[in-house]
Each structure stands twice: as structure tokens, then as C-alpha cells.
């Protein structure tokens, strides 16, 4: 089959690889009809996530048709012919983490738990196409994929919703939603979201859905801010205005009650010398992550507020404002999204028209043009917000 693979730093390549086959009893093989490029794929391609290897099949946002299921899959749950969206964390459904819906912390799905343990103290779940640290599973930017624990993860789509309407249930819609949910939003809350990329946009939509009084979008790309503004959110361009002053203005001097970091480890900074400082530290590996967004979210948040982190961090960071965090009673909440927990309720919200995931799609390309898709998305060319690939 054809698959988009990691071919070294800053290089992806669509290559011929073997077709996937059943390896474990509860596997399914899925013929992929739609897949997407995620912001976190850029961290892999930019070389910030260790344990990538030449030839690794990328992609963790995909959906398609079940071709075959292993002998351990209950046909009542899943059978050939079913149309499914596959969540990016692989979860067994049986361990203590899965039992309390912490699917992205599944204790059994990562065969490379030993590597993850060294990096993170305790292991994390397996993830499709997302380094060997998270299991070394082939990803979904391909014609076919093997889906382990197929009786736990994939959600069946039985209505006539289009691929574009449901594809993002695999990652970014639940991730954005979880970012908002972790904020425990009340009707008087002003919610500020750092990053108006795909996950940030969905965090904003979710915050409004959960009843926020006001939602603020912080970014530097005018087209991304316009996209947020069209959806009813208040844009703040950190290259044009001082974020702190603007947030104080917008909140009567209080600061946002809830802050969401939808940026993660490759943040840019309005102030060139601070951006350069972290860029250099990252380049010489004296910190692995550039945490401008997180720092600013913590410093901006109202005392007693919540800082919800859904942007991806990989390792260590520097100048963490622990004083602000501790002395002002801030709550820091975070996690890789426990997608399985949100797929069903969010599917219902899409069906009811409460969420329109298609609003962020700017490019649809054949799988063969994956490399161009990565370029467009990474360099924010042609107003690129989200690339969907068709195998």
C-alpha cells in the first residue's frame, strides 16, 4: 500500500510499504477513506519528539471502513463493513486507567512502555504514528491501518454524516473539547485560548458551547484570528498588541478566569529576543520545549483560575512561572485527550448541529501530496488551517 512516512527531520515521503495484517486477536484492519495532518505531526517532522525512525508511517487522525477483524473482536461490537472513526490513543479497555476513562494513559497498549517510562516517569498509551516512545504503531496517513483493541476504540458512524463532519472525532475535536471541559466553565467565565490552530478553534467553540460568557483567541496569524472571529470569538493578535493589556481591557482588569494553552512546545513569541532565547536553548537541548504560551497563560490567568493545557509538551522546559502558579491559587490541568470518552457525546452534538467541525478545513489533498500538505500547514501558506488527505 501507499503510506506517508517520516524520512528524517523536515522530510516526509509517500512510499510503498507492506499492507497491514492482523497481529493481535483484537485487531481490525481499516481501509482509510479520510485522514488528516495534525499540528502534533509537525512536532515529529520538526524533530522535537525523540524516537522517530526513517520509514515510520505517520498519522493519527483517520477513519474508514473495517475490512477485517481479528478472532477476539466481538462481532456485536464491530464487523467488516462498519464505517468507523479511530481514536488516536490506543487503549485496552481493561486496565485501571481505562476503567476510569483515562484512555491516553492505558497501561497495556504501549509495547515500548520502558522507553516512555524513562522519559515520563510512568508509561503512556500507544498512539498511532507517533514515535516509538508511544509504541511504534504504524499510523493512518495510509491506505490501510491495523487498529489494535478494535473493540474498544473505534466509533461506528451509522448516520449519513460526511467524512469531513466526523473525521476530527479522532483527535482534535475531543482534544479541544477536553481543554474546555477541564476549565469547569461557568456562565460568568471569560475564557482565553492561546493558539487559533485547529485544536484552539475547537477549544473556543467548546468553551462557548459549555456556556462561557466570552471567548478570546490569541494568535499572530491574521487568517486564523479571522476564522475565530467569524465563529464569534474575540481576536487578539500578539504581534500587534500587548497581550496582557488587551486581556485586562477585555476582562475589566481581572484577567481571564480560564486559560487554555492550545500551542505547546513550539510556541513563538511576540518579543524577538525572548523567542530567540528559547529557540537557542532548545537548539542546544538545554530545554526541549518552548513554553511561551504556557508562561503567558499562567501569568495572565485570574487568581484562583484554571490553566488547561492541551498543547503538546515533550520533555523539559525552562522559566516555568511557579511563583504565579502557586501564590495565586491557579489550577493546572492537562492531559493527552482521552478521546474514547468524548466520541459518542460529541458525535451527538455534531448530529444536533451544535458543532461544525468542517469550518476549519482549508485544504483537501490526495495522500500522494502529503509532503505538500505538511509544507502548507507548517509554513501557514495559502491560509492553511487544516489539511485533509484522501488515500
Amino acid at each position: 500500500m501507499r503510506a506517508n512516512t517520516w524520512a528524517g527531520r523536515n522530510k516526509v515521503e509517500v512510499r510503498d510499504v507492506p499492507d497491514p495484517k492482523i497481529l493481535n486477536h483484537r485487531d481490525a484492519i481499516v481501509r482509510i477513506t479520510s485522514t488528516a495532518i495534525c499540528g502534533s505531526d509537525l512536532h515529529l517532522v520538526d524533530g522535537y519528539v525523540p524516537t522517530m525512525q526513517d520509514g515510520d508511517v505517520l498519522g493519527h487522525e483517520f477513519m474508514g471502513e473495517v475490512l477485517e477483524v481479528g478472532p477476539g473482536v466481538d462481532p456485536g461490537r464491530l464487523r467488516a463493513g462498519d464505517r468507523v472513526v479511530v481514536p488516536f490513543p490506543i487503549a485496552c479497555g481493561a486496565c485501571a486507567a481505562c476503567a476510569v476513562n483515562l484512555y491516553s494513559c492505558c497501561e497495556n497498549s504501549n509495547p515500548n512502555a520502558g522507553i516512555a517510562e524513562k522519559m515520563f516517569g510512568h508509561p503512556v498509551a500507544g498512539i498511532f504514528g507517533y514515535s516509538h516512545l508511544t509504541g511504534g504503531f504504524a499510523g493512518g496517513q495510509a491506505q490501510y491501518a491495523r487498529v489494535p483493541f478494535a473493540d474498544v476504540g473505534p466509533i461506528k458512524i451509522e448516520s449519513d454524516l460526511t467524512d469531513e463532519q466526523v473525521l476530527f472525532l479522532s483527535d482534535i475535536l475531543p482534544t479541544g473539547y477536553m481543554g474546555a471541559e477541564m476549565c469547569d466553565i461557568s456562565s460568568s467565565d471569560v475564557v482565553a485560548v492561546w493558539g487559533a490552530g485547529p485544536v484552539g478553534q475547537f477549544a473556543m467553540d467548546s468553551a462557548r458551547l459549555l456556556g462561557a460568557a466570552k471567548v478570546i483567541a490569541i494568535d499572530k496569524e491574521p487568517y486564523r484570528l479571522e476564522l475565530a472571529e467569524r465563529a464569534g470569538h474575540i481576536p487578539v493578535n500578539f504581534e500587534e498588541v500587548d497581550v496582557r493589556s488587551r486581556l485586562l481591557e477585555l476582562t475589566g482588569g481581572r484577567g481571564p478566569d480560564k486559560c487554555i494553552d492550545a500551542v505547546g512546545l513550539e510556541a513563538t513569541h511576540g518579543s524577538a529576543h525572548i523567542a530567540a532565547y528559547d529557540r537557542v536553548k532548545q537548539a542546544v537541548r538545554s530545554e526541549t520545549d518552548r513554553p511561551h504560551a504556557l508562561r503567558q497563560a499562567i501569568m495572565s490567568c485570574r487568581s484562583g483560575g484554571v490553566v488547561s493545557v492541551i498543547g503538546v509538551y515533550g520533555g523539559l522546559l525552562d522559566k516555568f512561572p511557579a511563583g504565579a502558579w502557586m501564590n495565586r491559587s491557579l489550577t493546572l490541568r492537562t492531559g493527552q485527550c482521552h478521546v474514547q470518552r468524548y466520541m459518542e457525546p460529541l458525535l451527538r452534538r455534531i448530529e444536533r448541529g451544535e458543532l461544525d467541525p468542517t469550518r476549519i478545513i482549508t485544504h483537501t489533498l490526495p495522500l500522494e501530496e502529503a509532503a505538500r500538505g505538511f509544507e502548507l500547514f507548517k509554513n501557514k501558506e495559502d491560509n492553511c488551517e487544516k489539511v485533509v488527505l484522501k488515500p
Partner: protein
Amino acid sequence: MTCSVSPAAERTKQEEVRRQGRRLGWLSLGLGLAQLAAPHTVRRISGVDDSATSRAVVPAVGVRELVHAAGLLAGRRKGIWAWTRVAGDAMDLTALGVALAHRGGSRRRRLAGVTGAVAGITVLDLLTAVQATRADHTGSARAARGAEKGDSVELTAATTIRKPAPDVFAFWRDLENLPAFMAHLEQVRTTGDRTSHWTASAPFGKDVEWDAEIIEETAGERIAWRSIGKATVPNAGTVWFTPAPDGESTEVNVVLVYEIPGGAVGKAVAKYFGEEPHQQLDDDLRRLKQVLETGEVVRSDGAPWGKRARKEFPQRPAQPLSDAELEKGPDA
């Protein structure tokens, strides 16, 4: 999780190398202090008191000597620090060579004397560096990590499995199940109520076999066993099954002890356990958990070989297996 490996002979050798490193450290300290405290005397003895450059060079070399001294006296990796001394010697000999070429008479004689002394020290540094590097490779890291308990390896590991203690106990008590998750075991065959015959893949390319007996057993709580007869690597183990606080899971604690024989076999065994022997037992327990909670050992494309995954990274790329690879099965 803890572990310890420490063959006695290796330890003596390492101690000798460490002593030698410390001696060089004291030498560096003395030289460095002299060059900083009395640079002019040092310059005169060396015959370079006529040069303006030497006024800057001698104290600089003194500072460098203090760095060597700190590393050799306080650092754990004597090997690396001994090599910094060798590099320093090379610099000194070069500088002395240049100085020699430009001088005659009594200065030249003094310089020649100092050069000879430095050359002698260089030989000593080089010998120490080579020995220390060898010692580092064979085990200082291991010795530094765990408590030393003679010529045995003790491994401990723990996991929590979401099954009741009697179930986990029963699975383990059927010793024939052990090879399903323990990397080094090929087969365990029950030969009696408490006796069994074990086959393990060995570091020397062929299997080793031994008999074992269960020496203590409390239903649902604990099993202890040991090898009997003439085992190549005498070993013993104990596993405890304790109900976890959540009321539904079981905490599994394992201790394994291997008596490492001397000579080539011992070396091969130590190498087999590698730098991080505890990692193997950790992974064994992870697979036990997978088998009991999900029914089998989980395979990914990058790590498809189940318990045979020897190497953490690099692995095979995360792309589907070829037909030839697939035919090998999960334990290829």
C-alpha cells in the same frame, strides 16, 4: 526496582584503578597550586622565565591542572578524567617542544629535564586512562547503582494487575505459563507436584536447563522456588500477591536472585543481563499484565516480537510487517 551485579575480582580491579586515578588527582592538585601560587619559580625551573607568553601560559596551565584534580578526586568516571590529563599532557609537550626549539644553554637543559618528566607522567596518565576506561566499561556504573551483595544478581519488580489475587496466583502457580511473558524462558515443564524442569535461552548461544522446586507456597499469596541440582546459573525466586487498595486489583512483587558463576560463563551471564537487568524483569511483568488483562502480549509494528524484543531502540520502523516477517510469528 533495584538490582546489583558485582563479581568480586572485577571490584578489586576497579578499586585499584580508582586509587591510581586519585593519585594522579593529587599530583594535578600539587602542580596546579604551584603554578598558581608561585608561577615565577615554575617558569624558572622550566627555563622559560625569559618569555612573556609563559607569564600567561603557566597560571592557565595551573587552572587546567585544578580541573583535572577536581575530576580525578571527586568524579566517579575516573576514565574520562584520566583522558583529560592525557590531552593536557599533549598540550604541555607541544608547548615545551616549541620552547625547546628556541632556546640554548642552561635554559635548554632545564627545559629538557622538565620535558622528560612530563613525558614520564604522560605514560602514567595514558596507562591509567586505558585501565580506567576498561573498568568503566566492565562495571563501575553497575557497582555504583546497587547495593553490593557478593557474586549474585538480585532483581526486584512490581506491578498491579486488575484481577483478583487468587486468579493471578493460579496463573503463576501453573509454572508452564511463565514463558508466555518471561523473556529468557523457553519452556517450563511440570515434573511433579512441586518440581519442574526449566529451559532458558542462554547467552552462549545454546539453551541451559535446570530443575527447580517450589520451596514455599501460600495459596493466593506467595510462591517461592529455587533451582536444584547442578544448575549452570543457580537461581531462586519469590513472588507475592497482595490485594490492592482498590479492592479489585492485585499487587505483584517479584524478587529473583541469580548466582553468577565465575570465569567466562559469569562474564557472559553478566553481559546477558546487560547494563539494566531490572528492565527485563520490568518488561516481563508488563507482559504478565497484558496477558492477564487483555489476553495476550501486545504487538506493535515497531516492536512486533513480543517477549523477544531485546533492544529498546532503534527498532524496526513503525510500518506493517512484510509477509516474511509475519511468518516468524510473535516470538521470532
